[in-house]
């Protein structure tokens, strides 16, 4: 089911990037990158986080201006820095972070910007007809009159694709499109893409998931540190070689030894939390986090992970059911109490919730402990002790920075995450809540974070790993739960489930709804 056989050797080139270079300050995001795309072809752009894939596509789409180099679409050069020109030339982009207005309908989002701003009227009837036709042709079922805020992640992605098709895009760029999908939804997406290729569209598929790249692309291009390091027909490649090319050398992932689980350090019994806007709350969740064990939580984003993380992190209280630590019940549960109970919390978004960008490293390192000796006594700060502590963290956790007085916004994501790790792990926690701990990090940092988590596990901590990356969950977890619409699946020990079987649960099947409503 690939496009390989369809592709003729004499297919015309529809897109050409010539020697694109782009720098941000001292960082070279793209270094003389050139590529071409033929009609009806799917190329995969593969690379680690930070390799420059997204920057390159943003240049193509006119959201950034390249320092040098040019973009040609259907033989004509695109003016730089003009998304409108790219759209008009037939380029459609599905961004990693959806660009949809939640308070408007699907139809309004799709038609936004497609008519001259100075024309009266929206001509909804014609627009609706066109959307329904496209939805049928490309198997993208979605209600044109639904409010986007009420849609699931998978549906929102369909809207994004519809937006491009509605504008008669001939070239589709998809940036990490499967990151938020279940395995089954991914299959549906691939079918839609095959449909598109059959109709003569060309596709650039950005990913760091090797099996997907192998499954869908005709040709693969590998970016590393902003440079194009390899280009080959996909059929001449295998996963192993792709991985090596992507990372640049063989980076050994940490070995995962079997665990020796101990007693439950935290247990949830029939916990219910209220919905937060579109994000579902927990529905009668029962869960035990055991000492010396990594519990993985798989699921499509927006299915209650945030509620569970907030609950364990102390930000919300159970509306029903109980949350108990090994020894005692906690009726009044706050972030402060969570920290004092020995819970290390690695938040999902290190920029927005994990750190304060304009605070220096010292101020960030004591965010959770500033009220305790030795950092403060009776309301008076002891900055000397705080700085000494921070220097310790910088050394122990290999945080690359000019010093503890540096504003943390100047650090890379990996170093920021290492500081957070130091902040929470230095307190020798009994329980670790790791919410998307490696999102957006390069492989070196990913391995570092993973080995620290495994080390903590081996020292007897109970770890809850929340991730949308099924591979990460399956590699690290000793037991796995799946979460869907706030419901929690039974516990699956390591190696008992295939990705496809987990995918069924992720799509919301298999839950005993009797249980969900029993409370």
């Amino acid at each position, binding site marked *: 089911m690939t496009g390989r056989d369809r592709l003729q050797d004499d297919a015309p080139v529809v897109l050409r990037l010539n020697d694109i270079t782009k720098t*941000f300050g001292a960082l070279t995001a793209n270094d003389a990158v050139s590529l071409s795309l033929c009609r009806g072809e799917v190329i995969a752009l593969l690379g680690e986080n930070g390799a420059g894939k997204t920057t390159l596509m943003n240049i193509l789409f006119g*959201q950034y201006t390249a320092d040098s180099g040019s973009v040609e679409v259907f033989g004509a050069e695109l003016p730089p820095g003009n998304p409108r020109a790219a*759209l008009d030339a037939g380029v459609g982009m599905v961004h990693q972070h959806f660009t949809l*207005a939640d308070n*408007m309908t699907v139809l*309004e989002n799709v038609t*936004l*910007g*497609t008519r001259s701003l100075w024309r009266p009227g*929206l001509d909804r009837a014609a627009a609706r007809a066109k959307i329904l036709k496209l939805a049928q042709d490309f198997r993208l079922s979605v209600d044109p009159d639904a409010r986007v805020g009420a849609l699931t992640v998978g549906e929102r992605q369909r809207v994004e694709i519809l937006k491009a098709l509605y504008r008669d895009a001939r070239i589709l760029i998809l940036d990490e499109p499967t990151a938020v999908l279940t395995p089954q939804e991914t299959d549906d997406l691939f079918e839609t893409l095959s449909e598109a290729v059959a109709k003569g569209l060309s596709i650039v598929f950005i990913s760091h998931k090797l099996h997907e790249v192998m499954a869908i692309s005709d040709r693969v291009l590998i970016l590393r540190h902003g440079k194009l390091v390899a280009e080959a027909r996909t059929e001449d490649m295998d996963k192993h070689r792709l991985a090596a090319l992507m990372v640049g050398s063989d980076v050994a992932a940490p070995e995962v030894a079997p665990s020796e689980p101990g007693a439950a350090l935290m247990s949830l019994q029939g916990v219910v939390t209220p919905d937060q806007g579109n994000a579902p709350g927990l529905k009668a969740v029962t869960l035990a986090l055991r000492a010396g064990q990594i519990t993985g939580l798989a699921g499509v984003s927006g299915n209650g992970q945030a509620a569970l993380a907030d609950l364990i992190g102390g930000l919300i209280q159970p509306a029903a059911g109980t949350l108990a630590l090994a020894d005692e019940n906690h009726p009044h549960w706050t972030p402060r109490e969570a920290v004092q109970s020995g819970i290390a919390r690695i938040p999902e978004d290190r920029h927005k919730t994990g750190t304060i960008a304009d605070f220096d490293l010292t101020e960030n390192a004591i965010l959770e402990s500033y009220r305790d000796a030795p950092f403060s006594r009776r309301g008076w700060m002891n900055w000397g002790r705080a700085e000494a502590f921070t220097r310790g963290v910088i050394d122990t956790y290999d945080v690359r920075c000019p010093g503890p007085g540096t504003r943390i916004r100047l650090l890379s994501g990996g170093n920021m995450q290492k500081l957070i790790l130091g902040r929470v792990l230095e307190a020798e926690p009994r329980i670790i809540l790791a919410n998307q701990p490696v999102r957006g990090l390069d492989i070196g940092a990913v391995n570092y974070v993973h080995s620290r988590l495994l080390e903590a596990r081996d020292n007897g901590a109970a770890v809850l790993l929340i991730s949308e990356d099924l591979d990460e969950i399956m590699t690290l977890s000793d037991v796995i739960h799946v979460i869907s619409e706030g419901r929690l699946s039974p516990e699956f020990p390591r190696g008992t489930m295939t990705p496809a079987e987990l995918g069924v649960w992720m799509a919301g099947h298999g839950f005993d709804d009797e249980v969900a409503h029993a409370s």
Partner: protein
Amino acid sequence: MDILEILLSASFWTAAIRIASPLIFATLGELICERAGVLNLGIEGIMVAGAFAGWMAVYSGMGLWGGVCVAMAVGMMFGLIHLALTVPFGLSQHVVGLGVTLLATSLTYYAYRLALPEVTSPPKIEAFQPFEIPILSDIPLIGPALFAQTPLTYLAFILVVVVSLVLYRTPLGLALRAAGENPSAVEAQGLSVTGIRMGAVIVGSGLMAVGGAFLTMSAFDSFFFEMVNGRGWICIALVVFGAWKPGKALLGAILFAAFDALQIRVQQTSLGADIPYQIFLMMPYFLSILALIVMSRRAEVPAALMVPFNKGER
């Protein structure tokens, strides 16, 4: 005269609609800005500037509608200052808005003192006169209230309809609402967020100034210091009260004005004689705060309100 009697008098409703008119202009102006994602705290000063500019233009020999245009242009100019700092540079909309209010107010007072150095009581102009719409104005109660007003009041009501239509029925309105909800959606569809926000602030500021001009050219016929007296801030509360929708904002403005007209009349009754007049004057402000409290829970704030958009931010 008891309260019921007041509520059933045509003069009361006529006054209410008159009091509501400047609020409608300015509230619509603020609503347009906020729907595009920009909080415009320059509103109070822009109303002062509009009140003076329109009046001064007429006083210097221009026609009434010419005066309205001058007021609008002056308002747009201050809007330009606001947006130049808040839109491309993303500076604090709070600080810039208050700065624009201070600048507009002090420039106006300065200009007033320069233009009329030694006057004790400000000169008057020939203001807009009520225009009775035949037949309709003969309807009891509603007739005089709605159809015997000055042309500027009619314009205010027409503008509510126009703004509603534009917001919900045109590609422009779609883009404007999207800019206030998720600017990257606008950018990804090839439109300029900066351009849309700039246009919204300019048009919105122009409307605020016309609201100010209503005071000197329709409600009264001369310019006083302290004339706007917090009406701008009240309009900000009205936008929240109206849940960022023109129709509801209109309703809020009329409710508010009716209450204001009522307190003026109650002051003159026997009930009012025992209560210090300041209590009545406080009522509009209390009412605004109350409206904010009541509406704060359900209102759907534009998600990107006060969030600057830096193109291609990483």
